[in-house]
Structures are given as C-alpha cells and as structure tokens.
C-alpha cells in the first residue's frame, strides 16, 4: 500500500511541476504590475516545444543528444525519492539525504556537459559557472540537511517529515527553523533563482542555467525545461511541507485524506511560489564573483541550524 502512495506522491509532483512554474511567473508579473500569463501556460509551451523541429549544431557529439535524458531522469528520480505530499511511505534507504544530494549533482553535471558540447562560448561560460556553484553549494546542502536530520532523528527525508508531522508544531519546526532558512538558500542556488542566477534572461553575463539550454531546441529543450520545473517543484514542495507539516498523506490513508493531501500540496506550492516571487522581486542579483560570500553565508546559517538542533535535541 505504501509503495503505491510513494509512486502517487511522485506522479503528483510530476503533474504539478509546470503549474508551480506558472504560479511563480504569475506572482512575479503581479509584483511588476503586469497581468501575467495564465497559470497553465507552461503546459502548453512544453507540448508545443515537443512538436517543434530540432536544430543541432554540427560540432556536438552524442553527449549533447543524451544529456537532456539524464537531466530529466535525475529530476524524475528526485521527484520519487523526495517526500512532498506523502510522509512515512518510503523506506530509510530510499530517501537518504546524501542520495538526494548525489542525484541532484548527477543532473547538474550532465546539464553542464550539454552546455560544453555546444561549442559556443555562452554554453561554456554557463557550464563553468554552474559547476563552480555546484561545488560551493555542497557544504551548505549537506550541513543544512544534517541539521534537519538531527531534529528528525533519522537521515531519510521521509522519516524527518513523518517525525515533524507527529510532533506538535511548536516542538518540531522551531528547532529546525534556521536549518530550513539554510535550505531556502540552497534551493535558490540549486534551481538557479535570484540572487544566484537570473532564470528569465538570455544576457550572457547574468545567465548561468539558461546559458546551458541555449543550444537546445524542440523536444530536447522541452525535456530540459520540464526537468528544471520538476526540480524546482520538488525542492519548493519539500521546504514547504517541512515548514508546514499539516495534511500530509500518512499510510493509513482514506480517500478524503488523499484528496485533502493533494489540495494541501497545491496550496503549499502556491504559497511557496508566492514567497519565491517575493524574494525574486525584492532581492537584487549578486555578482557571480561574490558568490563565495553567498555560499559561506549559507554554510554559516546551516551551522547555526545545527547548533540550534543540537541544543533543542539535548534539552
């Protein structure tokens, strides 16, 4: 029974991914006093991209063609092993936090290789910067999640979520609050949002993630766009459900509980998208060569989270 719930949790995320991106774009538009496109527009763009013809540069090799599949595979794997709507459905070895870190790195590596194979300076610069960011995000990523693990008592995200859900809100979440802030830093860096990277531009000096997608077109571009959408949804969903561990789908589930869970997830994703849009509209993008300040800040916040977790645990 829990096996189906895990598959369901993954599928929900896969379906909702373009919706979250739509939410974020809508919220940002509204912040900029624009009407913004309808929320379901990303679904349509992906489908239309799928039907377009692909133009591939002569100089690229098989790596350029294979990269989108691996990037999407890593995103899909993340969707299935990171709990968003459901809790207590995955065994310990399935959602170990270091496994999540590894698979995220797997995805960004192939994205960077795709960028490098395009033999254009834009892609190369994007790949070089992406790999630098991936290298610097790891300490903060693992320290933040370890702080959470101390609070949750186990190293599998699913177990942490289940533990937080079982505790009254005041007991669990405050202890993990600083760690969650660190995770927000990490999420922004991992998904190429402000202040690390500007997702909406094609200006070579400010784009990192977009630069690597520059050479892709047609179905490959769709796969890559969809993969980044899924990754964004997974991480936003995780942070949201960790900070608001209510209405989660627990194993002895009833039909009502299921529907409520999905709706709660949609609400949480909308809220998270709104917060993300708010951050993106207020913060300015940091210069790439000041990135070590950003990541050292993230690491220090994670350490503070660890300290708080230790104090709250021993008390």
């Amino acid at each position, binding site marked *: 029974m829990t096996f189906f719930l895990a598959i369901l949790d993954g599928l929900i995320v896969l379906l909702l991914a373009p919706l979250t991106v739509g939410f974020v774009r809508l919220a940002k538009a509204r912040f900029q006093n624009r009407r913004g496109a309808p929320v379901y527009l990303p679904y349509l763009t992906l489908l239309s991209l799928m039907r377009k*013809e692909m133009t591939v540069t002569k*100089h*690229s090799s098989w790596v350029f063609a294979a990269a989108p599949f691996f990037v999407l595979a890593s995103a899909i794997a993340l969707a299935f092993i990171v709990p968003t709507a459901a809790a207590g459905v995955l065994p310990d070895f399935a959602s170990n936090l270091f496994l999540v870190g590894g698979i995220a790195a797997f995805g960004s590596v192939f994205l960077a290789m795709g960028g490098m194979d395009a033999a254009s300076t834009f892609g190369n610069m994007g790949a070089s910067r992406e790999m630098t960011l991936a290298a610097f995000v790891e300490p903060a990523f693992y320290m933040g999640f370890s702080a959470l693990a101390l609070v949750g008592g186990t190293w599998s995200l699913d177990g942490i979520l289940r533990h937080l859900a079982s505790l009254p809100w005041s007991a669990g979440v405050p202890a993990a609050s600083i760690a969650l802030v660190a995770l927000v830093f990490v999420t922004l860096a991992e998904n190429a949002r402000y202040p690390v990277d500007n997702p909406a531009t094609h200006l070579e000096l400010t784009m990192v993630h977009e630069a690597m997608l520059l050479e892709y077109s047609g179905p490959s571009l769709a796969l890559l766009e969809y993969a980044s959408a899924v990754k964004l949804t997974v991480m936003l969903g995780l942070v949201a459900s960790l900070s608001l561990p209510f209405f989660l789908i627990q194993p002895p589930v009833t039909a009502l509980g299921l529907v409520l869970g999905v709706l709660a997830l949609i609400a949480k994703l909308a809220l998270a998208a709104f917060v993300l849009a708010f951050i993106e509209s207020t913060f300015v993008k940091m210069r790439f060569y000041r990135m070590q300040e950003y990541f050292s800040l993230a690491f220090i916040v994670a350490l503070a989270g660890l300290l708080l977790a230790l104090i709250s645990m021993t008390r």
Partner: protein
Amino acid sequence: MAPSVFGLLFVAALVLPLLGSAAALLARRAGWGNALSQYLFMLSGVLGLAALAGYFTALHAASSVVLLSSPVLAFSVTPLSAFFLLIVYLGTFITSLYALGYLPLYADAYSVPLTNAVSGVFLFALAAVLLSTTVFTFLLSWELMSLSAYFLVIADRSPESLSAGFLYLVMTHIGFACLSAGFLLLSGGHAFISFDGVREVARQLNPAALAAAFALLFIGFGSKAGLVPLHQWLPYAHPQAPSHSSALLSGTMLKVALYGFLLALTLFPGIPASWAFTVAAVGLISAFFGALSAAVEHDAKRLLAWSSVENMGLIFSGVGIALVLHGLSMPLSGALAAAFALFVAFHVLNHFAFKTGLFLATGAMVAKTHTRDLDLYGGLAGKWPAFSGVFLVLVIAAAALPPSGTFFGEWLYLQSLAAALRFSSPLLVASAAAALGLAALVGGLALFAFVKFFSAAFLGRARSEHAEAAEPMPVLLLVPPLLCAAFSVLLGLFGLPVLSAATAGFGSLVPVTTVVPGASMSAWFVFALLAFASAFAFIAYRVFARNRTVRRTETWDCGTPLTPRMEYTATGFSAPMRFFFRGLVMAQKEILAEAVVPGNPWIANRRIEWSIASVWEAWLYRRIARGIVSVAAFVKRLQNGVIQLYLLFVLLALIIVVLVAL
C-alpha cells in the same frame, strides 16, 4: 585447494615478474620481446588472483600462509596483505594488457626492453612489500619499490622527468630514512625481528619513544602516499612515467603506502586520540589541496596525479577518524569506527578501479594526440564515441556521482561524519562539523575538476591540430579502460554489500548497508531508480515528441562567426576557481601591452601571462633548500686551500681530544 598448492601459486605470482624482466632483457633484440614480458606479467597477475581466490574462500582469511621464513628474509600472506595483494595483481594484469598495445607506440621515446625490465622488478617489489613479515624484508622491498619506480619515472630521459625523478627520489629517501628509524626504534635494537616480535618489544617502550616512532612512521608513509606537506613530488613524478606505469604508481603504489601505515598502526600498543586527530587533519588538508589543485590544473596526467593526492588524503582521514572513534567508548562510536574502516577498504578498491582506468585512458589519448595540455584538446567524443563513453563512466566514478561505487564510498564517509554530530563532547561535534563541511567542499571540487577534464577533452570543437588530427583509437588501448570501468560499475553494484558482508562476518549478500539506525543505503535501489527514471524520460520523449526531424546547423553565433579559439579551454573553465582560491594557488595574471606606435597607448599588442604555483613549494620546499644551501656555503669555507689552516685543525682536534682524555 590444499594450503601448500596456493602457497606455490603465491610464490609463482611473486617470482613471475622477475622472469618477465629477465625475458625483456634477453629478448631485447627480438620483436616479440615486449609481448613476451607482458604476457608473463599478466600470467603472474592471473596466478596471484587465483591464489587469492583460494586463500579467501578456503581459509576464510583467518590464518596466514607462510611462503619463506629464513632468518633474514621472510614472506607470508596475512589477511591485511591479502586485500592489498588483490589490488596489486589486478593492477598487474590490467596494466600489462594495456602495455601490449601502448609500449610499441613509444618505441622511440622509451627503450622498451629496459622499461619492461624495470617494471618487472617494480611489480615484484610491490608484492614483496605486502608479503614481507620482518622489518628487514619490508624495508628491503620498500627501497627496491621506490628505486624501480624512479627508473620508471625517468624512462624517457627528458630533463623534466629527470628533475621530477630527482624530487621524487629525494622525498622517497627522506621517507625511507624516517621509516627505517621509526621501525627500528620500535624493534629496540634487534636487527632481524618479525612484526609480531616488534609488537612485544613496543609494549615495553616508553611513551616518548612510541610518539617519536609514530611521528617518524607517519612521515615516512605519508610522504609515500602523497600527503601534504610531503606530496609535491607526486604531481611531477607520476605524469612523467609511461602511462601504464603511472597507472601502477597511482593506483597501486599509493595503496601499498597505506598498507604500510595500517601495518605500522597494528604494532603500537595503543593509539592516543591526539595522534589519530593529526592523521585525520593531515588527511583532510591533503584532500582539500589535492582537489583544489586538480580543479585549476590543465595538464591531463598531472590533474589525475592531484586527484590521487586528494583520494589518498580522504582515505588517510578515514583511517584517522576511525582511530579516533575506536578510542571512544560512546554508544555509536563502535559502529561508526567500523563504517569508516569499511569506507577505507571500499575507497581503496574504488580509487584503484577508476584511477587506473583514467590513467590508462589518458595515456591512450596522449599517445594519439601527442600532447598532454587539455587546452589543446576538444571534440574527441565525435572521433571516438565508444572511448568517450568508457571515459564518461570512469569520470562519473572519479567524481563520485550516484551510480558509481565511489558515490557509495563517499556516502559512507559523509553519513558516518554526520552521524558523529550526535556525540555529546563539543570538541568531537565541532571537528565532525568542520570535517563534514570540508569533505563536502572537496567532493564539489573533485566534481568540478573531472567535469572540466571530460568536457575540455571530449566535448565541443577541436581546439588545435593535435585534437583535429587525432588518429583512430585502437581496440587494444580501449579494452583495459573498459575493464576498469566495468570493475568500477561492478564495485558500485556489489562492492558495498560484499564488503560489509565480509567484514560483518556472515556469508550472505547484504542488499542494504546500514551505518546507524535511520541511515542506510542500497546500491541496487539506486541503480533501479536511475534506470526507471531514464526509461520514464525516454518513454515521455517517445510519447510526446511527434516531430523527430533533426537539422544539423552551425552553432548559434549572433552574427560573429565562431572559431574553435572562442571556446572555453580547461584554463578558462577553471577561471572562477582560480579567482576564488587565488591566495592558495598563488595565481598571478599579468596583461602586458606593448604600444605599436611609441607614445600612443591606445594601439598596443597585448599579451597575457598567467601562472599558478604550489603554496607548499614556494613556502616550505624552497625555504628548506635555501637553509641547507646557506649552511653548506658556510661549511665550505673550511676547505679554503690554506695548508696552515688544515694543520691548525689537526692541532685543535688534538687539544680537544687530549682534554677529553685527561
């Protein structure tokens, strides 16, 4: 197999390399000389593996097989040495298979018979170090190993390899001096003493002597394993050797240094926490410097050498932390110490697999493109699709990405460190947190280095005629790296379960490895997950993508026609790293502008000169060298040619000795 039979097998495997080198010398005129010696080496590898198989299954690796026990020389197989012998014989087999196709390509650069003869002695010495059970035999075979490695490094007699060989042999000799002093300090004056004897003698030694002996042994083995600050020879020496030998140097010799250190640890009655902390700290610092230098390096083989420094640093820090935890008596410390020991064993195997494969593959690449500078590579994936596929698997293993065995090794390491955060003593938690942060950064830097290596070499357009005119890759040079890649994937799938089963003592395969309750990992699940996700993505593509026509066009260049020189080279790729760590890699960049028309600053030919230097070499090595030189210059003034002064020396000595005699 009865014990005596594979005692014979071990002896055969030990002696065959010497036969191979003799054959190489005797048949130096004949064309098939190289082939004959390589086959003999491979035979020794196969026999060794067969003997080990027999040893592991039949005796359940509990007791040791004595091969020779004369009062001076004594060889026998012990459980600890059997594990490392596995690596030596695997390495022998694969590198000799590779040398079959590789050495004929370099018939003019290396004198093939001599190189084979020396590598035969080297292979013998590697196995002999592992098999020796008395201090004298150990030091004898150790010195033989170091010396034969020197002759492999200077195989092509070029000035760079001579200076690299010089630095290597001087550091090795200092290490050997420390080793002999350390071992003999422990054996208390007995010249011919077995390691068991040393254990008894060490028990009665006073703590100061034990501390001095440990320091000496750590310096000796650390310098050989390439730990900071005695690592500077490794990035110079390994690349200069022929590729199949540098694969052996990096893949196997560093492990023998680790074996020596582990053997030395068993000799001490007890390891205080302060020693273990220093080992862990030095290990982590070496890992950081190794990874950082690999990230900014643009010479292919030197990058791999730096990555060896990083991995050996990680392994030694694993040993250090295991020792610290072993000393504690807290609830989880026992399980965590076992986890780190498992990490050391597993990472040794993983590093052997991917490093040997990478060195062999890079050797093939350098053989075909005649340059080692990554900035001149590019577009090789198009020319050698199969080869680049194998290389990608090896790079994934080197960068510790999920499906590879190294990822599960890194997981063991980081997971156990995170689990150590729960201990109560603040010092332990602080150092565990620092170690976790640094280890994660090291993982990131290694990731950066190997992505840079793969993409600069294989992707994009050829940046020079070296890469443009790369000849097709012969199969013989492709098979050994393929074997290594396969072995690394196998390690990923079965490595952790088999090893934890072996160490845990029961026979059945353990699908899920658990470090502490709540922290477990199953290799098969990860493979299944990635396979399922890739299938899912492919099916999504097949279902949704109606129009699958592909049009090959020029890369989008917004107007200005793109040339290969506009691509990011490996140096360009690592520019952010050089900027962020400019203090540590001592990066200097100068843009020199000479005005075309004197007096007119605007029109000028600009030239950029940039350089990175090793912090250690600048601060530590040159300082010591300058100190020795100044002392030598001072002492040299004694021999100034004036006979009257010499007579005064004699008189002075006489007076002093007579005064002593009164």
